[in-house]
């Protein structure tokens, strides 16, 4: 069964304290892995797409990496405005036509000043 597991569920950091969020996946052929940021009461905001193992994408203080079994979202020197829930989702090759995504439960990040 296709599955996505994110850890930890919650993470508290001090401003400037770098860390990583994990997304482990089991899927029958990966078409793409997606990272989203979601602020309370709002819809998820697209961050990155990764397609193959070894790929990396960066945006400001965020860097996403991908292996054959997991993805990491590295946050370097976070600021309070990085506080949000980060969602990971995968799309299997056999659902390419429909675009159906499988979402993880998310990691809620709190960055304290």
């Amino acid at each position: 069964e296709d599955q996505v597991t994110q850890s930890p569920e919650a993470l508290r950091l001090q401003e400037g304290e770098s860390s990583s969020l994990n997304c482990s996946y089991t899927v029958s052929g990966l078409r793409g892995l997606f990272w989203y940021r979601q602020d309370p009461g709002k819809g998820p905001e697209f961050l990155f797409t990764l397609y193959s193992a070894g790929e990396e994408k960066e945006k400001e203080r965020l860097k996403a990496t991908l292996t054959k079994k997991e993805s990491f979202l590295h946050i370097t020197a976070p600021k309070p405005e990085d506080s949000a829930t980060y969602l990971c989702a995968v799309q299997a090759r056999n659902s390419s036509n429909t675009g159906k995504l499988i979402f993880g439960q998310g990691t809620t990040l709190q960055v304290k000043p």
Partner: protein
Amino acid sequence: DVKVTQSSRYLVKRTGEKVFLECVQDMDHENMFWYRQDPGLGLRLIYFSYDVKMKEKGDIPEGYSVSREKKERFSLILESASTNQTSMYLCASRDVSYEQYFGPGTRLTVT
């Protein structure tokens, strides 16, 4: 920029009412999706559509139906609202790179 809009941010309805949630995207995307999001359960797919008048059930379609008469508009219908349908409803559309873009969400409360 991709823009996905939803008809209401907050909605309060009574049990048994018929509820319409509308979603519009402006990027000519073929695929559109309806999710609900609940604490501890994450995002769950209700229905999706891959073309005008084409629809497919997601993981939790019971109690819902959808309509897609035009490419840019995808509507979610609660035939007879119940309290267990109180939730955050999110619409998304997908581009050719398989990335889904979400609307701002509708917080529905059924009393």
